């Protein structure tokens, strides 16, 4: 796919004045969005329902073509390529795993994507083995995807995309309806993907997850991007949160009402808040989770 690029290493995502109007012509789903994402960045997209988050991410892999403006992914014009062509570059993890699972076994499910994009059988075996190990799917590898529990099914859905090893992965509401264990695995996965240099885009209403993992938050309202900053800056902006009807993580809210007025940090995680409080009272913070404490 020979597309012209302006730099040697193109941006992972380079969107310029992208608009999307539904074919009916009367609903603007995305209005003039500009967004640049470096390779290896991990970003979160937040906003109320209908703000344009999903529409924006569907431009990345060509599921939707911009009505105007440009969407350049890894130097490739997504509007000029099919979804199948973009699949090798952009992985899209749908919210509901039931929408993508069909094979007779989990193994076949994991092999489906890599085979579609032309990965050799040897490489497929390696990728599947890695995914199985990371997601802990050893016990269900021969099971039918619909026979495993919903959280495991969600992991199978994510693993099937990860096995394709795209350079950009989009997660649409990855933690919705998931138990703590699955959410933790998703959290770990995002960290690992970041370490491996994969660009991660996470659309979510799960603010604690975003606060914990992403390094940049895009805030959308009424089909436009209205803020683009670090999670600390975004969640500390009370006016922005109020304007978008969003709520910062509880721990951040507590920090804003307690330690921040006294020069403390805008905590994003319980550990950060605990450390600040502990330092104020001259003691060392306990970082273990309550569950771990009970276990010990």
């Amino acid at each position, binding site marked *: 796919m020979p597309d012209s690029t302006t730099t040697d290493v193109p941006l992972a995502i380079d969107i310029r004045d992208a608009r999307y109007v*539904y*074919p*009916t012509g009367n609903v603007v789903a995305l209005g003039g969005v500009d967004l640049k994402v470096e390779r290896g960045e991990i970003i979160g997209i937040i906003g109320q329902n209908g703000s344009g988050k999903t529409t924006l991410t*569907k431009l990345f*892999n060509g*599921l*939707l073509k911009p009505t105007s403006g440009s969407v350049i992914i890894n130097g490739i014009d997504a509007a000029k390529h*099919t*979804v*199948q062509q973009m*699949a*090798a570059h*952009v*992985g*899209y993890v*749908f919210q*509901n795993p*039931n*929408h*993508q*699972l*069909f*094979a007779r076994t989990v193994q076949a499910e994991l092999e*489906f*994507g890599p085979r*579609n*994009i032309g990965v050799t059988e040897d490489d497929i075996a390696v990728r599947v083995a890695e995914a199985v190990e990371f997601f802990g799917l050893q016990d269900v590898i021969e099971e039918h995807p*619909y026979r495993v529990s919903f959280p495991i099914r969600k992991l199978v859905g994510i693993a*099937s*995309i990860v096995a*394709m090893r795209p350079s950009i992965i989009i997660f649409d509401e990855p933690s919705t309806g998931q138990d703590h264990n699955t959410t933790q695995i998703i959290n770990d996965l995002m960290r690992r993907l970041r370490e491996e240099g994969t660009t991660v885009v996470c659309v979510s209403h799960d603010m604690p997850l975003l606060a914990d993992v992403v390094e940049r938050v895009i805030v959308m309202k009424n089909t436009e991007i209205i803020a683009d900053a670090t999670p600390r800056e975004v969640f500390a902006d009370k006016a922005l949160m109020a304007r978008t009807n969003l709520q910062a993580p509880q721990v951040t809210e507590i920090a804003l009402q307690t330690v921040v007025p006294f020069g403390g940090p805008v905590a994003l995680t319980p550990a950060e808040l605990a450390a600040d409080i502990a330092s104020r009272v001259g003691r060392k913070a306990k970082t273990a989770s309550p569950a771990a404490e009970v276990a010990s």
Partner: protein
Amino acid sequence: MSMQAALPIAMIPGNSIIHRINPLAKLVWVVGYVVLAFSTQNIVILYSMAVFAFILAPIAGVTKPLLKACLILVPVGSSLLALQIIAPAVERPWTEVASLGPLPLYGDGLYYGFVLLGRIVASLIIALVMVMTTHPSDLFTSFAKLKVPYTLNFMLAMTLQLIPVFQREVGIILSAQKSRGMKGTGFAAVLPSFVPVFVGAIERVQQLSISLESRGFGSNGVKTSYRQVRGRPSDWVVGIVGALVVAGLSTYSIMRGTWSLAGEIQFSSVFVFVTFLISATIFAGIILAAILFSFKK
């Protein structure tokens, strides 16, 4: 979502005169169309019915989705005409008007093919116009007034309401599979989409039935409806006119022994030959494409 644009068999919101007609009056026309279509072999009547039904589409503002839904007629129509021309579903003797090598082509077969196609086209178009201009809840309320059993009525309304839901679901599933590099052709590509659709449909119906039972569905007592449908004098006129026209034409047709014009209309050999070539080519093309796709990985 953009899926709304791709929903050919669902209610298209609007306030046209067709939308405002009482569902029962519209139902009289649909049932009447089916009765008349299957009681006559007069192709002038049949295609006049189809044209009249189609004229309602622009009035209701549903032309585009109607045309989309009517695409199903391409394989149906081509197969009907091609097969009827070489093997008419009427009693012998057949009139051979042309031949394609050793294959005889029959003029009466083409006539009967047009009759069968006309029945389908007329009934389909009027039924689609009704579905596209009638809110399922209004239909439900209207049936309730006719004392249709509540459970049966509810099942019908639910079926109509689930169609757009499933269509949207199919769109999402296709997107999910394309995102994993699925090429979108062949039986091997259809399978990844149909399994989630069927599983989703079964799950949804299961959840719906549990939800209904947990909210007292099936209990005794008078059932009321949130949406009220009133029968205005104009609705009565539409319904009665429809019933009278259908009853009149059907009776006349039956009295004249299906009112067939097969004797009066003689197709030329060239017309039969060309019609067969076109319909057979389309039909064979569809079959061939289906076979090729089935074996293509």
